[in-house]
């Protein structure tokens, strides 16, 4: 993928295919500081992840995660998206958290390291551009 304008925030359109083959496309915020990708619960449900609807406090799903931000803690269910397409790049089995970002931010989806691990990103703040390249090879820890 070539350069995209950085704008106020680094965003790209990304297409997601869930379990049932349904597709949703969103304008997503790119955040290398985020460990996981984030998708709204209602869209995760639409894409075939019915476990999102489980709000029984006594029977927690095994994929229930607690995450930390510097603004506090939260809980979300982890799901594995069948396919994520970003530009001409396509990735399978990407981990997402089903979580509702405050609506007033204007974003539904955040792309974190669970997807960005497959890419090399170059943030050029003075020129206000973002370059995204696909990476191949094994993940180094």
């Amino acid at each position, binding site marked *: 993928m070539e350069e995209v304008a950085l704008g106020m*925030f*680094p965003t790209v359109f990304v297409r997601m295919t869930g379990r049932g083959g349904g597709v949703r496309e969103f304008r997503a*915020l*790119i*955040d*290398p*500081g985020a*460990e996981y990708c984030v998708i709204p619960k209602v869209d995760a449900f639409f894409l075939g992840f019915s476990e999102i609807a489980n709000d029984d406090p006594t029977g927690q799903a095994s994929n229930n995660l607690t995450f*930390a*931000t*510097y*603004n*506090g*803690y*939260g809980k979300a269910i982890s799901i594995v998206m069948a396919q994520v397409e970003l530009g001409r790049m396509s990735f399978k089995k990407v981990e997402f958290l089903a979580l509702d970002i*405050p609506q*007033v*931010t204007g974003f539904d989806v955040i792309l974190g*390291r669970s997807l*960005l*691990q*497959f*890419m*090399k*990103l*170059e*943030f*050029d*703040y*003075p020129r206000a551009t973002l370059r995204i390249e696909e*990476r191949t*090879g*094994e*993940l*180094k*820890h």
Partner: protein
Amino acid sequence: MKIRLGNPLLVSARLEGQYGIVREVASLIDFNAPYCVILRQDAIDLGYPHAANRHPDEERTRPDRVPVFTSWQGIQRGIVVRLNKVTVGPVVASEVDAVVLELQHPRFHTFDFVLGRTFLANCKLTVDVKKGYVNMR
């Protein structure tokens, strides 16, 4: 400057405030934070007593210093302080705006400062998760 990509992404930053007072603190790099974030006590120690003011009081006299944000906790306000200099390795930025926001669980966080776009505005950052590093220049 090459930074190992940890979780969270931490570096050591030197903050220079008024009257030459310096604090060196562990800092989180946040690519999308509009401002840097500083603890209230650090802002006061660095020579910015107005960081101790309540938001409504500060807003009455200096509304330009009380921006409004959206966070996971909802709508929040913070008080802006202008740090004379912020240094991360060889990267130096002057006149950096930082906002005073209290961390929800400060004892559990391993950092005391957040480097946002008011510092990163003059940087070029390359993130390579596969190789495990962030290059800042």
